[in-house]
């Protein structure tokens, strides 16, 4: 959308617009020259006019060297409101941060922080909270730092914590309590903490693909303070506390503590893990009707990954019970589906154990390994060049790649467990003989791993190139096609033996689906892998925003699809079902996932 007024327009008597500066949340800003030659910034209020006008009126007569001066508020001929402000010709802090992708020099940071603290303290002393402190609103006029956009400022009410139905401000710098409509001056302390973190590291402490994701991180995720110089970790950690009562109570005290830490006037220690900011959930942040914190609901430590999402829903339990009854009846009738029971039971137990292991073991960060590698490789350029959405995209791609790396041990463990629980039954179903066949075990592990890789790498590549998950199943079908060829070569190399398979179709045209030793032919493998990847909606099992991290019903659904394929096209049933089950379990457990409860709350 073009700017409303082209250059040389004179919507406001006495001022000629020369160019547009930017379009913000509240309206358009222009660079203009008054008839007497004074450079000014004109802000046309287009949205939230009442909110901004109220704020501007409070700031009209404020005068401080570290604040952008508001000269006047005028109405044009159409009744629109314009704010006439001081034009600051220098760089914004945002531009300076981009210039130093690895972090700004400390002396430069000190200059900016001192300016913001002085200007912000002046506002706070007059009962005004800025509410939208961000690098784009901080300017450098030569050696003087100026805070702009103070029109968003909000007068602190007598209760200090007035409810606000409307969220204003910028999400990257937004304090957690803003989600509850609370705007004490601690929100400015928090915003300055985020800005200093960004100045020091070149990147944001809380970033994400969507507004909801970023807000969730503000609410629940502790900042990674290890990226900061040790002497500054404690100060920044306190400014970024989730609980506003645990932050510095003023910008001035924060500025003093920062200055002291920077100059080494005290001896702060790196923040130990146990003292890292405590995560606060929405429930923790509940307030009583008067807006005061509920003392009976103190902050509590939570694991990085919650178990929420593991437990099946009521519908899921019904599905499991129904599937169990069906399986039992099949066992009773001896229809050949009874071998489904051990893998499913094993899958359920194994899945829970695996997740517990992931959450509590030192390997908790393994899934993010590739993400971290990508991050460090891109550290020089990413924040200066890549927009936040692009950065978030890369992180998710990294998580997918990390997940692919995790599949190998998981598939190996599951297969080992399966064979360990019922070695003879499993081997008999797979090979037709009760003897342990290591080649078959290796084949199951390799096939399940390759299937998992394909399912995880397809969305990763799509994210990388198109910025979103694939919408159609064609990529999966193509992946399955290539995988079929690979698996058939592997089967031939390992010389595996399978029991005879019977399906509705035993050949396609002149080409049989089974080869020698009753082993599937290359076509048999291709048909099975292609159909398995194409017919099952794997996106529902790998999407980071899927309903639950692990769903046993999805495993059962996958098993049924595999069984149906083998019933129609000749393929060893046991092999198909076991590989499908292992793949479904593995991709669900390994792929990235964001907890739904927090998403929903946002």
């Amino acid at each position: 959308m073009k700017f409303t007024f082209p250059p040389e327009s004179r919507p406001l008597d006495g001022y000629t617009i020369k160019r547009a500066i930017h379009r913000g949340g509240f309206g358009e800003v222009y660079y203009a020259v008054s008839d007497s030659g004074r450079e000014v910034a004109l802000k046309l209020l287009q949205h939230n006019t009442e909110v901004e006008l109220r704020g501007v009126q409070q700031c009209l007569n404020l005068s401080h060297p570290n604040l952008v001066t508001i000269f006047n508020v005028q109405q044009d001929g159409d009744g629109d409101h314009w704010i006439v402000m001081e034009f600051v010709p220098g760089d914004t802090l945002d531009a300076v941060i981009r210039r130093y992708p690895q972090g700004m020099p400390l002396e430069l940071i000190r200059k900016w922080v001192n300016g913001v603290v002085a200007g912000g303290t002046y506002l706070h002393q007059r009962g005004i909270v800025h509410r939208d402190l961000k690098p784009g609103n901080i300017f450098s006029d030569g050696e003087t730092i100026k805070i702009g956009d103070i029109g968003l400022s909000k007068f602190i009410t007598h209760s200090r914590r007035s409810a606000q139905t409307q969220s204003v401000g910028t999400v990257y710098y937004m304090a957690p309590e803003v989600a509850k409509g609370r705007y004490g001056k601690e929100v400015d302390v928090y915003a300055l903490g985020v800005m200093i973190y960004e100045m020091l590291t070149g990147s944001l402490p809380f970033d994400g693909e969507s507004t909801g994701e970023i807000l969730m991180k503000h609410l629940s995720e502790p900042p990674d303070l290890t990226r900061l110089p040790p002497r500054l970790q404690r100060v920044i950690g306190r400014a970024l506390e989730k609980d506003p009562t645990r932050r510095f109570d003023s910008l001035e005290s924060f500025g003093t503590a920062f200055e002291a830490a920077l100059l080494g006037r005290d001896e702060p220690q790196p923040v130990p893990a146990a003292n890292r900011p405590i995560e606060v959930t929405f429930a923790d942040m509940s307030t009583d009707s008067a807006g005061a914190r509920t003392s009976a609901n103190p902050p509590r430590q939570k694991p990085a990954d919650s178990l929420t999402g593991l437990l099946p829903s009521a519908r899921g339990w019904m599905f499991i019970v129904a599937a169990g009854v069906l399986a039992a009846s099949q066992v009773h009738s001896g229809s050949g589906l009874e071998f489904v029971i051990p893998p499913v039971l094993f899958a359920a137990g194994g899945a829970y154990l695996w997740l517990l292991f992931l959450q509590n073991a030192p390997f908790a960060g393994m899934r993010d390994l590739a993400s971290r590698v990508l991050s460090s490789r891109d550290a020089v350029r990413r924040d200066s060049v890549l927009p936040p959405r692009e950065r978030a995209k890369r992180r998710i791609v990294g998580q997918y790649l990390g997940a692919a790396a995790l599949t190998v041990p998981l598939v190996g463990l599951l297969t080992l467990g399966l064979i360990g629980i019922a070695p003879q039954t499993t081997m008999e179903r797979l090979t037709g003989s009760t003897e342990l066949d290591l080649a078959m075990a290796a084949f199951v592990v390799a096939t399940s791993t390759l299937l998992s890789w394909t399912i995880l790498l397809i969305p990763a590549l799509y994210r990388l190139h198109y910025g979103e998950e694939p919408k159609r199943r064609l990529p999966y079908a193509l992946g399955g096609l290539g995988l079929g060829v690979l698996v058939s070569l592997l089967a031939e190399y390992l010389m595996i033996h399978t029991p005879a398979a019977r399906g509705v179709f035993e050949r396609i045209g002149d080409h049989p689906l089974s080869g020698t030793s009753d082993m599937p032919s290359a076509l048999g493998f291709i048909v099975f892998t292609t159909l398995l990847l194409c017919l099952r909606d794997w996106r529902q099992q790998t999407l980071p925003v899927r309903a639950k991290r692990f769903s046993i019903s999805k495993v059962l659904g996958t098993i049924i699809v595999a069984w149906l394929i083998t019933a129609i096209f000749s393929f060893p049933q046991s092999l198909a079902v076991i590989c499908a089950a292992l793949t479904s379990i593995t991709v669900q457990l390994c792929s990235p996932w964001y907890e739904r409860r927090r998403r929903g709350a946002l």
Partner: protein
Amino acid sequence: MTPTRSPATSATGPQGCRLWIDGVGCWQLWFADTLTLGGGAAGQPCEADFGIQAALSRRHCQVMRSGEHYQLSTTGPAVIDGQPVTENVFLASAANIRLGNDVQLSWTRPSILSRSAVLRICSPHRPISSIDGVILLADTLLIGSGAGVHITCPRWTQPLVLFRRQDQLFCQPQPELELDGQRIKAPQPLTHGSLISIGELCARLEVVTP
């Protein structure tokens, strides 16, 4: 230098013009082969072509274009890349220039495809006129979001190429580019008040006469 209204058909003039760009700033496009830099005060007559509000001589130094190269000759104290300069010196493709005690300038020729150069103030000093820098326009001017451009416009979706033929400035057509609200299929001359739009952003040309 003051902007004047020129007839729509006139050339942009030897002194060049100003380009006001949304979201970026204002740039002086300098056509002459010599650019004088000097100190001055806002609202006062200035002898220099590029006047800076600083404690400099009125004609502190000159940048001269000679074929493919640029030279700097100075009458006042000047330091280039840490080396004091007392006589004519050739300017490389990038240089940091200090005039007087504290006026810092950056000099760049960002594209090997163009002889045009960019001169802008890095220290807190301000030019006398409301500009962000000077483009010594030899042949072409590249504007866009990528590397190797004279004026960086991060939000522009397409590059803008202006080129000089004698003292007239032309605009190269681009898929989304509109000149005065019209799509163009061939290079068109720019005149005073020409409005170049790419997407939601636009740039306006303003002819300057001495």
